[in-house]
């Protein structure tokens, strides 16, 4: 009975919370999470997981969630900017930066492309590092082997990824090849429409390497050999995966996920929410959610977050120009 009850309560809160918009008074009494994608996606998991940890740990009295799909998250972003809802935060991730660069598919509003500057960056909370992997039976043992094979015969290396050209998956691989002194635009990138399909492509032998998020590879760890991750140092969840940095390639990239407030959010509210998001990461309630989702904590609040977004925009713009996608 408990199961049925909780199932229905989850289901109905998903359906009904759509109507809860007007909230006032104390900053962290109530918080409404706007999610630019459907249930079961990455943004959805981040928002619901964070909300769960915050309420269980007692930082937040009540959290509500609202899924608002459309335009790859653009709909939700436009909603935040146009209606400036109170006590409401938006979950976003690296595509916010990438889409502000590629104008033709950016989050467009009337007279320009929307970027992180149009909302109030509160804090980055978790991240997923990029990873390059080969099939377990591949002759390539490390990234150097791949680079050598590529330099000997560029068409011998085909790189699979779980999304379109110019997407995060493509950029991760391009960054690595760029650091190895190759022209990233010459590396054949083979796009698939999901990380799982790209993995199947790698294991079926039609591509030689895969470039995607580390999280995407965790399920297939027995079938692939991770030959380089874009983290500054090895991560606890995959201790046998070497970093690109330790192999002499200066590549660092993190697909962050974080929260943004509506334009005009007061400094006091922003600071309070940012602090709460940082404090919660020290609690066992958060640890439970984190471990279950294999997230990597990268708490990055306020001004630091803005600076990071600025740098990432600059780096990615340069790379995407090289790749000819903008």
């Amino acid at each position, binding site marked *: 009975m408990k199961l049925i009850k909780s199932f229905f309560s989850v289901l109905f809160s998903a359906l009904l919370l759509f109507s809860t918009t007007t909230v006032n008074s104390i900053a962290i009494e109530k918080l409404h999470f706007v999610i630019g994608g459907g249930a*079961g996606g990455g943004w959805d998991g981040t928002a619901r997981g964070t909300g769960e940890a915050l309420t269980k740990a007692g930082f937040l009295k009540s959290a509500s969630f609202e899924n608002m799909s459309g335009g790859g998250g*653009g709909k939700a972003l436009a909603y935040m900017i146009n209606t400036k809802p109170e006590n409401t935060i938006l979950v976003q991730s690296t595509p916010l930066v990438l889409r502000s660069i*590629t104008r033709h598919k950016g989050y467009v509003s009337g007279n320009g492309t929307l970027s992180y500057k149009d909302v109030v960056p509160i804090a980055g909370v978790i991240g997923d590092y990029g990873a390059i992997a080969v099939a377990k039976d591949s002759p390539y043992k490390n990234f150097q082997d791949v680079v050598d094979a590529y330099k000997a015969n560029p068409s011998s290396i085909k790189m699979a990824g779980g999304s379109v050209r110019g997407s995060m998956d493509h950029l991760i691989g391009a960054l690595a090849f760029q650091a190895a002194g190759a022209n990233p635009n010459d590396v054949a990138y083979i796009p*698939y429409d999901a990380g799982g*399909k790209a993995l199947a492509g790698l294991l079926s*032998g039609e591509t030689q390497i895969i470039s995607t998020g580390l999280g995407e590879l965790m399920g*297939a760890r027995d079938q692939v050999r991770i030959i380089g991750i874009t983290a500054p140092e090895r991560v606890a969840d995959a201790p046998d995966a070497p970093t690109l940095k330790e192999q002499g390639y200066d590549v660092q990239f993190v697909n962050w996920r974080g929260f943004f407030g509506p334009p005009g959010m007061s400094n006091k509210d922003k600071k309070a929410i940012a602090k709460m998001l940082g404090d919660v990461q020290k609690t066992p309630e958060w640890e439970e959610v984190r471990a279950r*989702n294999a997230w990597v904590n990268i708490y990055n609040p306020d001004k630091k977050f803005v600076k990071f977004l600025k740098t990432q925009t600059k780096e990615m713009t340069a790379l995407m120009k090289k790749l000819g996608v903008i």
Partner: protein
Amino acid sequence: MIEGILIGLTTALTFQNIFMVMIGCFFGTIIGMLPGLGPMTAIALMIPITYGFDPATGLILMAGVYYGAVFGGSTSSILLNAPGVPGTVATSFDGYPMAQQGKAGKALAIAAWSSFAGGTLSAIYLLFMAPSLSKVSLSFRSPDYFALMILGLTAIAAFSSKGQFLKAMMMVVLGLMLASVGQDSLSDITRFTFNNMNLTDGISFVLVVMATFAMSEALTIILKRNDPTAAAKQVSLTELGSIKINKEERGKMYKTIPRSSVIGFLIGVLPGAGATIASFLAYGMERNLVKDEEKEKFGKGSVNGLSAPETANNAACSGSFVPMLTLGIPGSGTTAVMLGALLGFGIQPGPRLYMTNPEIFWSVIMSMYIGMVILLILNLPLIPYIARILAVPKNYLIPLILFFSITGIYVMSFNNFDIYLMIGIAVVATFLRLYDFPMPPLILAFVLGGLMEENLRRSLLLSNGSWEFLWDRTLTVCILVTTILIVLWHIYKTLTKKKS
């Protein structure tokens, strides 16, 4: 293996796990019946609850919801022409006409028995072949998928008989055009979005199905309410609830079920296909294999035409557990969510799963047998009552269908635009229906077209722009030759028929 089966059996037969199978099947059936709300959303929302259980129990519950939804989805396909899940779209091709002929109970019973047989047979395939099946999962490359989609398109022949050829082809083109809306899946160019942000993600399959099937069907009924021929079609409802399948029909099912379960299962094992493709392919193949007089009945309430996709989608559903459990590769959104949950439990999928967690692997397969029996027990006795839905006066039934279509689409995306888009497509589809344009070719082209284009362009990328991929691999050649043979066979049959 015997040892594994025993471990699985002892795990699956605990009181708690049987209870979970029941809960999963029950909710799955309901979720499946409701248009729009799919197993993926349901499982995603359930995950927080499952963390209270041990991994095997959690997975058994999630699997139950998944195959329960595919099982239950056929009900709304047959009764209302409103497929509850994408995998049961093909079920409505023959199931809905059959229900319209007053044989709703029979159609539901055929669907239930076919689902049961498809699910059970594929669980047997899983049991005996799972370790080697992971190789099958990886045997298909992009050119092979491309060839498979071409093969799938031959199923359109089923709707292009009796001078309908040109109309069917026009609907195919319309379907292909709708499929190309949105960000293209290889480069990052948006196509036909008219700078409307709501279209950048493309048009969802469920939306197109709901608009062209359920909604436009309802609108057509409203428009034709004064039509005397429609009134004449109001058959006696006495037979509505009867679930008796006669000997002849049973004979047809005995032939259809084994072959459709094999096709469905194998397509389900492929990470790049899935239950929807499996049901379409099984439907098309079945039409190629039956006798001529039965062929004529396809699309008008054929027993084979209903049984084939219903068997295949359930078989594919079990098949999709192969790449997820033995390779850690999710083939669909639903299996991706389940894989995420599995990792959250600290379970590492892969070839070693048999060794490291035998209780999980085998108990899930064992729970499938139990689940299939439960679904059958749950569904069969209810059929006479559910079928009576059709006895509800049209002026109550039609608003209900429209209500469920609209709310179903809304809870999928929470985006108002999707509602307007659906109504727009439904209105256009209604006009097309009034001029006798068949809808299934549009749906078929919509599903297969996107995948066909994606795999074709990927194949070209992989072969550096050369068309050699068409004959480079034996598998590709085999599938393409089969396709050509089917087409030639149809042409030959048509020509000889004309002479006589």
